[in-house]
């Protein structure tokens, strides 16, 4: 039964580009990118209990590194992609070391402040980042000689990367290390008494989560062929966090659903009204007040209640 559902999902995702038009294919590619990004943040927020408001750092930094290396150093994608991931992960090692001096709201404020450093640098360091103009004129890679310039080929590429990323994140969560991580979220002192090094568990999670954030950053810059400081802004971090919380933090499907909802809202609503920020603000307030656990756990609870009511 469970396998049947997965198979159905796989067929639906694989067949989607044949049914849908280019607009929807591109929209779905963007949802994949946002889902990977939100899922990586969920490792910290949902499973580690560490609310980060600076996750855009990883998406933006990886995108900028890759863009800068290919534009200003003239390197090929085979080199820029691993180098961007490595560079971003190294910065995450340092940022994690600083931010994890605190937990809870302190952690949130430090991650926010640190991501503002990157944002401010992207804006001001014009000789490197081209400032407000952003870096443009980028290309998509062509893995194994397959061009990704078409909507359909990029769709499959993004789908493949997303499936790999989410599988590896799910394995991380399901592993004994993931169990220890949830332990440090719920009972840090007990975990410490049991001999777990709480700080290191959190730090490794921080770096791992940043790594997948960087992967989504590469997808992002490949998709847009352009990167602007706005990708590093607090709005970008907040969007991801809203996706995680709206979908349901600490669940695997939550951030994916949440990211999809946000992306659809953003695309459809901004076609009619210009005020995406205000709408996002209202969604934020409403979700936090009325559906604090998120859509996925909320729907699941409703479903269970309904079934219970039916069976009497």
């Amino acid at each position: 039964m469970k396998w049947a559902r997965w198979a159905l999902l796989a067929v639906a995702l694989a067949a989607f580009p044949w049914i849908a038009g280019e607009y929807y294919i591109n929209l779905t590619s963007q949802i994949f990118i946002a889902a990977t990004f939100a899922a990586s943040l969920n490792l910290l927020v949902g499973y580690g209990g560490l609310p980060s408001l600076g996750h855009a750092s990883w998406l933006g930094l990886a995108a900028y590194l890759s863009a800068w290396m290919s534009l200003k150093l003239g390197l090929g994608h085979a080199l820029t992609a691993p180098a961007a991931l490595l560079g971003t992960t190294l910065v995450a090692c340092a940022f994690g070391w600083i931010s994890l001096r605190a937990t809870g709201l302190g952690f949130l404020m430090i991650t926010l402040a640190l991501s503002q450093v990157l944002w401010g640098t992207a804006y001001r360091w014009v000789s490197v980042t081209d400032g407000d103009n952003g870096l443009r004129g980028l290309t998509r890679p062509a893995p194994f000689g397959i061009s990704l310039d078409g909507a359909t080929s990029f769709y499959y590429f993004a789908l493949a990367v997303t499936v790999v990323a989410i599988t590896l994140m799910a394995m991380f969560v399901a592993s004994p290390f993931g169990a220890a991580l949830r332990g440090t979220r719920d009972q840090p002192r007990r975990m410490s008494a049991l001999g777990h090094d709480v700080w290191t568990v959190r730090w490794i999670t921080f770096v791992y989560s940043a790594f997948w954030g960087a992967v989504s950053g590469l997808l992002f810059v490949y998709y847009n062929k352009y990167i602007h400081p706005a990708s590093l802004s607090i709005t970008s971090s907040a969007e991801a966090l809203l996706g995680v919380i709206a979908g349901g933090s600490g669940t695997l499907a939550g951030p994916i659903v949440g990211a999809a909802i946000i992306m659809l809202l953003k695309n459809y609503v901004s076609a009619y009204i210009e005020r995406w920020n205000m709408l996002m603000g209202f969604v934020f307030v409403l979700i936090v007040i009325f559906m604090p656990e998120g859509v996925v756990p909320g729907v699941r609870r409703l479903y269970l209640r309904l079934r219970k009511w039916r069976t009497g």
Partner: protein
Amino acid sequence: MQYWIIQTLNSLALGGLLFLLAAGFSLIFGLMRIANLTHGSLYMLGAYVGVTILKFVPNLWLAALIGGAVIAIFGGLIERFILRALAGNALGQVLVTLGISFIVADFCLIVWGGDPIPVQTPLALQQPLRVGGVAFPTYRLVVLAIAVVTAVALYLLMERTRIGAMIRAGVDDMQMARAVGIPVSKLFTAVFCLGAGLAGAGGIIGGPIMSAYPGLDADMLPLALIVVMLGGVGSLLGAFVGSFLIGAIYTFGTALLPDLAYVILFLPMIVVIAFRPRGLFGRQTV
């Protein structure tokens, strides 16, 4: 010489404005354990509301008082009707303040448009003060004086009055404060109003220096965050020292190394967090 004096005064004026912003932020965080992410927006909203008030009341100081009161009421409403509904859910409260900050930012964009709106320096203060052949921009001196007076007033409020003693008790041990009968819930509203009002008034007073523009909130909020983390949560002295430190680093950093000013700005914060997580004068860890 003249250049350095101007830069120093700029840094002191910015430090003063930062203090108006960060003092409230720090008290709110210290007492309510809420990182109020609307604080930058309250500052910006103050600046814009000030612009509108100045059309009817041609006096900047009166406008700052009225505008500060308006923002204080707005802050009080946020606290009473939204944050109160989420009592005990610190993360939820922070996210709601973030959501409100987006709403306020867009609201300002709708009402006042996307172009920066300059605010005129009061006529009496437009002439620089000349002492021994050196000109001092008068308005910046006045801003500095206002910040110092506010700091002294807040200090007296905190250390010499009954309300201040209650706030300090709440910051140090909330449960004990409740247990001995301090009306903590009323204090929350009062402190939130006070913090919001200071931020709003700061936005108006800062108007002639910074003007009112979209993005002012995103520029000011990180500065307030660093000041508070540097100085220590809930500490007035920390907010004071931190503000002038950050004001100086930001001004001179921008003047000397414009590309990397933002990086330099965060270095002291990183050093302090690494070696003294509670901040310079804080009593509790963030």
